[in-house]
């Protein structure tokens, strides 16, 4: 019984780690993308704003866990 619980716990932890990895890869890819946009297309600002907003949303949703604010007194993990 305890072993099964530990297994479930490990699976959940692994899934949470994986989300962190996927978000990180997207953030780095977007950052490199905006670097090239800034270097090549000088003065082209709207794609840079769009990328910044996407990055901010990802961090706020998946790293800052904004949804916990609305979870009340329930478990956060």
């Amino acid at each position, binding site marked *: 019984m305890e072993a099964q619980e530990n297994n479930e*716990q*490990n699976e*959940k*932890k692994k899934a*949470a*780690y994986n989300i*962190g*990895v996927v*978000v*990180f890869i997207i*953030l*780095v890819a977007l*950052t*490199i993308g*905006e*670097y090239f*946009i*800034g*270097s090549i297309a*000088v*003065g082209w*600002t709207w794609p*840079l*704003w769009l*990328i*910044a907003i996407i*990055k*901010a949303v990802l*961090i*706020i949703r*998946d*790293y*800052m*866990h*904004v949804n*916990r*604010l609305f*979870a*009340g*007194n*329930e*478990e*956060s*993990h």
Partner: protein
Amino acid sequence: MAPHTDTKNNYRYKTGTNRMGLWLFLISDAFVFGGLLVARFYLLGGVRPELNQLLGLVVTIVLLISSFFMNRAETSMAYGDTKGFLNGTLITIILGVLFLIGVVGIEWQIAPFSPSDNAMASVFYTMTGFHAFHVLTGVIFLIIVYRNGRKGIYTQEKHWPVEAAAVYWHFIDVVWVFFYPALYLMGVPVG
């Protein structure tokens, strides 16, 4: 109701309240950063300072990596993995210090202007300085949390300070997500 359950519910209630307070603080702080961002576009318009592009990219990636490890540290604590939490926090602290060295220690020294030269210089030093101060306070916060973690103060059920430190750290990252393109990428470079 058993005393243990009562304590646990109390802790959850307090955490919910603390969480709301932290987010309210961050929103008010975001207005200050928003004001700086508006000042940058009002004063500089379609030009930007001539800065070291590669250094800007490197410090940005360093901050993103630190956010990744902070997230990993918090997740570890949430699942009772103290060792993972300590390792992740320590790496985050080191990367935070590296970011500070990159911006304050290097970029400030090689920038082609001094703070009092013109509006562009003032905007640059105010934005990066105010952000760097937040990074510094974040590092101090993380050192305290790391020290407490080593003492075994946090558990899987009770680790609000870890969550608070993580949310604060990610907030610093969100601010840089907007400051980086505003200072390094948007507009025509002017020396």
